[in-house]
């Protein structure tokens, strides 16, 4: 087997040292009744060429080269070539969590830069080294708020990504963390502040809102924060479209930001791996889940970085840890780090402005369902025809349309969510408009 770097003679030398006559002998101490007495039912080992052919064949059963207007938490953005150049370096790709700082300064430095850039983007003071994804970052933020406030109720806006709310429910169900949802203004598509205020109480640990929200609408975080704070609750701001942060006012008034960086050079990859983040205020640093890299010095007095505040983590605190997370999404976070470095200050803004322009060109002439200000996604009414029918029509033109909303919002079953990014060409957008 080409991945096993031993010759037969080396094997027998080593077996001899072990005092074993054969490889099987090494397992002779296993109880007979637990051993597998047959070969695994898995086809014989394949050459790398057959493996490549297999996955190409599978890929041929997937869509390729369709212009797509899907967003809804996963966005198509250009991916700078340097991203793969960097993450393909064995020194990043095949290294473990940087527990041994003296031979992991490369990884540690990039994480420190990542944490810094996330802070600069979100207006927060502290960011962790990554969470599994945006959806799992939300319950982690909620639990964090519960620990901070000593309260247990969570209020969530219905405009938070529906799958994120499902994940929150799953996490919450077994730990006595009741979740209540509040509505959105059916005019603007933005959160219903009145409804929020009505549901607020001194039991509420956190109010969770998303901006741009699931409908693409930019929310008024300031107002939501003011209400939450009035009742002693924390405001958790969620984002799924990181590119919006290049243009939108950062959620300075939020207490915790939980987001997804997939837009930063992370391929859609059928839903993962992505990179979630949690950022917060300095004062909450000891309640943040996940890994943190900190600056320090080495014994020669030179700047050095290392994992820090690990007393928050499971390997030290065990059941008292801030989370059970161990492996995170380091390499994916590195992709986002390279992306931020390539685009930089001006690039990220220009990118966001292009997205804004494309989405508004697409919207122009389409029956918008909501009136609120939107970034690069919008809800469109299909007046009469079902959204599925419109998509069928577009598929005929080899275009993938939007996401029909009935599945998540029965009241919007005649609507679809359309997304336009810098990658969508004008001509295709015109075709979409014609389909309505």
């Amino acid at each position, binding site marked *: 087997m080409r991945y096993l770097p031993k010759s037969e003679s080396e094997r027998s030398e080593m077996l001899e040292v072990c005092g074993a006559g054969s490889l099987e002998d090494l397992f002779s101490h296993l109880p007979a009744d637990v051993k597998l007495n047959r070969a695994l039912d898995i086809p014989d080992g394949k050459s790398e060429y057959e493996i490549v052919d297999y996955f190409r064949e599978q890929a041929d059963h997937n869509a390729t080269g369709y212009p797509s207007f899907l967003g809804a938490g996963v966005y198509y953005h250009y991916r700078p070539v340097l991203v793969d150049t960097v993450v393909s370096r064995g020194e990043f790709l095949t290294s473990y969590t940087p527990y041994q700082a003296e031979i992991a300064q490369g990884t540690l430095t990039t994480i420190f830069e990542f944490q810094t850039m996330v802070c600069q983007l979100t207006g927060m003071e502290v960011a962790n080294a990554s969470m599994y994804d945006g959806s799992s970052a939300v319950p982690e933020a909620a639990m964090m708020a519960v620990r901070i406030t000593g309260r247990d109720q969570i209020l969530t806006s219905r405009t938070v990504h529906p799958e994120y709310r499902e994940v929150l429910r799953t996490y919450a169900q077994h730990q006595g963390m009741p979740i209540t949802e509040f509505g959105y203004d059916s005019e603007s598509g933005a959160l219903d502040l009145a409804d929020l205020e009505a549901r607020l109480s001194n039991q509420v640990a956190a109010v969770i809102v998303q901006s741009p929200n699931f409908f693409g609408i930019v929310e008024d975080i300031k107002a939501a924060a003011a209400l939450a704070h009035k009742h002693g609750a924390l405001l958790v701001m969620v984002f799924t479209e990181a590119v919006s942060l290049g243009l939108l006012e950062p959620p300075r008034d939020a207490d915790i930001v939980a987001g997804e960086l997939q837009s930063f050079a992370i391929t859609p990859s059928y839903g993962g791996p992505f990179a979630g983040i949690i950022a917060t205020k300095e004062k909450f640093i000891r309640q943040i889940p996940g890994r943190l890299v900190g600056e320090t010095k080495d014994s020669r007095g030179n700047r050095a970085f290392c994992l820090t505040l690990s007393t928050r983590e499971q390997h030290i605190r065990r059941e008292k840890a801030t989370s059970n997370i161990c492996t995170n999404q380091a390499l994916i976070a590195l992709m986002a780090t390279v992306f931020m470095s390539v685009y*930089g200050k001006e690039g990220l803004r220009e990118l966001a402005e292009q997205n804004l322009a494309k989405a508004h060109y697409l919207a122009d002439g389409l029956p918008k369902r909501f009136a609120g200000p939107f970034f690069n996604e919008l809800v469109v009414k299909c007046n009469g025809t079902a959204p599925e029918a419109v998509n069928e029509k577009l598929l005929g033109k080899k275009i993938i349309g939007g996401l029909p909303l009935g599945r998540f919002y029965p009241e919007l079953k005649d609507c679809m969510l359309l997304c336009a990014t810098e990658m969508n060409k004008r001509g295709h957008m015109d075709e979409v408009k014609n389909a309505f």
Partner: protein
Amino acid sequence: MILKTTPHLTQNEPLLFESSSPGKKGYQLPALDVPAVDAKTVLGENHVREEIEGFPEVSEVETIRHFTRLSTWNYAIDLGLYPLGSCTMKYNPRVNELVARTEALAWAHPYQPESLSQGALEIMAELERCLAEITGMDAVTLQPAAGAHGEMTGIMLMRSLLEKRGDARKKILIPDSAHGTNPATAHMCGYAVQNIASNSSGLVDVASLEAAMDETVAGLMITNPNTLGVFEENIVEITKIIHAKGGLVYMDGANMNALVGIARPGDFGIDVMHLNLHKTFSTPHGGGGPGSGAVAVKKHLEPFLPYPRMKREGDQWAFNYDLPDSIGKVRAFYGNFGVLVRALAYIMAHGGDGLRRATMDAVLNANYIRKMLEPYYDLPYKKPSMHECVFSDDRQAKKGVRTGDIAKRLIDYGFHPYTVSFPLIVHGALMIEPTETEGKREIDLFVQALISIAEEVETDPKMVLNAPYLTRTSRVDEVTAARKPIVRWKPKATASIAAD
């Protein structure tokens, strides 16, 4: 004597923020093919931010040099043995990176029509089939993003089943040798943790387990082989004890690299377990992730698996969301698909027989190291080793040298250290897992290095205490880092932040 490394110069490199200069660009976007819009007009003044303060401004060449230079400060599997116990740092085949980048897979949107996602679905279905066969379980979910996430999923499955039976129960039993994620997970799922002391040979003490087991106990989280690298020889009896009182047995599968093709948890009484695809199935660690914590269950737990599940509709795959007993979603979409692709490619490359042979070589390497080092380091537990072996720093401690110091000195010898101070039941543990992808030459150099360090401890302990010497960064002060945490760059003067 150091045989494996030689000092060489490496490039220094400031942080991106320190090499930024206004107006430097590393990007170019195609010209806009639609009219530009004024952000403040369409979004409202208050929604539009000022420039992103402090954000990098560097060119393309500076970016590639920045990350290339930083990369040379890392150790990695591609550079040598990475014997972190419990982490299964094996070779990451490059063909897996290639196939994961196949355009129609890498650029597939989770909401694109199922009819246009059949390739992705087939890949997941085939991987589920392979993992069920390998573990001897009945059903598999690929949704969890990592091992700990899989543990949480698994414990929730147990809890949901017990709830359905009428009582979720209060406690989870966990051996004191378990990994930290086990108790942390139990706690997140609303259970109290009761530790089970290991017996003198490092195994779960059957008597105390029997004593601890009652109707308030939801079940046991067991790691097999355990974190000493020892197979729990009483595993069948253990699972019987738990089942007898209506409990369920969760197996932490982080150590499956010792069992694949040799023994199957499904055959020795396990109800639910997770696999770390980023360990046993070689998907790259990438400096800390991503991973995948696929969970395998027996029939009775299948109805509770996270939705959606895949089902066959004619000659097509489809997602089934209609699962009333499901615990729900543990993450958006379907899991770390890109990682799943790599894991399947790994399984295909080996085939059933190849996987078994890999396991045998992994166990051979661990036993060889154990034999070679036993004369020099204290081996607290003498049971046969599987894929890893755990020594203690007992002898060296007498000279004031601890496992952490030996680990740092090992760096000078050209190796990444073993896992330090885990499992907790071994005082001053040196936890060594070579994996099967190490050749005799590399292993002999590793053994030679640890023997040489043992001698240094005798002759010149100071030398070991102040290691490493050959790295560009000497011993790092982790205490100060935690006392005054500086977790982001700031323009000079205001650099440090106060912590509460």
